[in-house]
């Protein structure tokens, strides 16, 4: 892509970005307020965006509060993620018919015509999460056709975070807050609330498709003050992370301590409710359910999100390999922070903090890791 210079559009023109995407045939998915949380849903105009809201996040705590300005992106991430659009929670995999002679025909169940979607408001941590799921579903030899079908039609408008969340630690995971070229995007924007020009947005194309959209907008070129201010906004965000995670030698730390008493302590609190896996943007486990209708001749196989926290997850005839809550919490954390590296070449965690915020008992994996570091036991023999 030819390098295009960044542009600036004013708050009152923000809606034209959405219109431009719609004109290109995209269904725009963006942040909205629903059920007292920021949730990604289809939006029609900039009026659907959560103007003037901020999220107060802590371990086991999430509240939306009013800001004293009208920022469109003045919050971080909510309980849901882009994962639900790319890797749907419920999907018909296979449709099967059996005729009177007993002949079976199988067809794909994923026949819905899906609109091309534009994701508006993708944070840097979320771009990393999408890239991680790309590796899981597209990068390991076999392609998940359902993910691929949804993924290839996505137009991303990324956002540089202007606020750090109470449970955020993207700086520790090197996944933000600044959106970078190594996680491709079509457009990236930074929201500026004050300064010369008032409430405005600096926008930059990251692809030809992005450039085309920006070209059609009524804008002015970004000048040094705009860019400087944008840099400062992001730098300030980076300094106010709610959490830290020391990732130095982390896989080895965890795998050397599989019998550490810390697992027993967290198991006393963990409800194995699976919230963390549902809100996590990289968790990808699923299960299948085979059903028939009353005649027994029409069958379907459905795929639904699953969690390693369930009793059933590791079930084999005779019992589950991981019965105790302790072993299931350990599986989740060691997969996310340690064995994910062996499987996919990176950490599975992007530092978005959702698992901390949405844990009903406030378990904080940054605290758990810190306590392992502090009281590390002797390395296990291999």
């Amino acid at each position, binding site marked *: 892509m030819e390098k295009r210079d960044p542009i600036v559009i004013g708050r009152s023109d923000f809606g034209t970005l959405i219109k431009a995407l719609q004109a290109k045939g995209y269904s725009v998915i963006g942040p909205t307020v629903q059920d007292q949380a920021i949730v990604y849903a289809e939006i029609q105009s900039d009026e659907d965006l959560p103007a003037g809201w901020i999220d107060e996040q802590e371990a086991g705590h999430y509240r939306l509060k009013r800001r004293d300005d009208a920022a469109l992106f003045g919050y971080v991430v909510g309980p849901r993620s882009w994962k639900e659009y790319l890797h749907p929670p419920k999907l018909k*995999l*296979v449709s*099967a018919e*059996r005729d009177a002679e*007993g*002949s*079976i*025909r*199988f*067809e*794909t169940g994923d026949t819905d015509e899906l609109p091309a979607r534009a994701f508006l408001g993708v944070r840097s941590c979320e771009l990393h999460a999408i890239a991680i799921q790309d590796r*899981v*579903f597209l990068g*390991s*030899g*076999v392609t*998940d*056709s359902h993910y691929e079908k949804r993924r290839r039609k996505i137009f991303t408008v990324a956002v540089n975070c202007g606020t750090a969340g109470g449970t955020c630690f993207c700086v520790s995971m090197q996944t933000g807050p600044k959106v970078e070229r190594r996680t491709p995007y079509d457009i990236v924007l930074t929201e500026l609330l004050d300064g010369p020009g008032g409430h405005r947005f600096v926008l930059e194309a990251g692809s030809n498709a992005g450039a085309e959209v920006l070209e059609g907008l009524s804008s002015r070129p970004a000048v040094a003050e705009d860019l400087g201010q944008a840099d400062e906004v992001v730098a300030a965000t980076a300094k106010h992370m709610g959490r830290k995670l020391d990732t130095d030698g982390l896989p080895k730390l965890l*795998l050397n301590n*599989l019998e550490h008493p810390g697992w027993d302590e967290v198991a006393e609190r963990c409800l194995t409710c699976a919230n963390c896996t549902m809100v996590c943007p990289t968790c*990808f*486990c*699923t*299960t*299948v359910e*085979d*059903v*028939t209708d009353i005649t*027994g001749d029409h*069958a379907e196989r459905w795929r639904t999100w*699953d969690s*390693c926290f369930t009793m059933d*997850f*590791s*079930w*084999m*005839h005779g019992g589950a*390999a*991981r*019965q*105790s809550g*302790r*072993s299931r919490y*350990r*599986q989740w954390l*060691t*997969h996310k922070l340690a*064995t994910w590296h*062996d*499987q996919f070449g990176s950490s599975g965690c992007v530092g978005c903090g959702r698992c901390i915020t949405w844990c009903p008992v406030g378990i904080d994996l940054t605290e758990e890791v810190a306590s392992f570091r502090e009281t590390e036991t002797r390395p*296990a023999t*291999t």
Partner: protein
Amino acid sequence: MINVDPMIPNPWRVANRWEETHDVFSLQLEPVEAKESPLFAPGQFNMLYAFGTGESAISISGDPNDKSGLLTHTIRRVGNVTAALSRLQKGDQIGLRGPFGNPWPMQDLRGRDLVFIAGGIGLAPLRPAIYHALSHRSDYGRIVVLAGAREPEDILFAAELDQWKALGGVESRLTVDRAEDGWTRSVGVVTKLIPKAEFDPANVAALICGPEIMMRYTRTELRKRGVTDDRIFVTMERNMKCAVAFCGHCQLGPEFVCKDGPVFRFDRIAFWFAQREV
């Protein structure tokens, strides 16, 4: 139309079915639409779909050299799906996805003595490897088959175990955990057959299949004889939903048993094998 999407089954037909023991049966399957069966390597498995009930991961237990186009699967009745599969009659159709999995490394093991150690139904996933070794006899040194079962009525492929015994250059030994009076063959746990088996510990490769506990103790006995972990191969089992490393269920540490396994060289998984509840 033959589905190439690995998540969509293709229709296959039961060409034959028979009982092996009181709770184990075999299904010989042929494809409904394809002209020939896919090739499979010893140690691989298929996902068999009993219409409307569900899928089970079942090892292919037949001869990889068999050009008849039929795939044999040996199955133990342990739950809803396997019970449904056991009710299938000749001519019934099922769904099949596969073959999946990392096979026994028969090519890499050429030139070695081979000892196959099977516990219970573990002989089923091993049998294709045994067939392969026997039909490429000059590629391998001594061949030893050691099989253990609970009681005489549970012995799998009993006739073949004896046929192999009768072949030159093949040692085949069988033992049961307990027996009634009429039994004159060995009684005792399968690991006790290891000290006296005739193979060269410095050269042999061991292929083991059975319950995890049995594989653990078998490996200990082999080590006592000087067989190192890099020449011991096991086949692992975990809950499987997809068989293509997407559903996450089959993970053993970093390994996806469906894709990185089910056959593993022991040193690769030795660490995880020794952990509890992983």
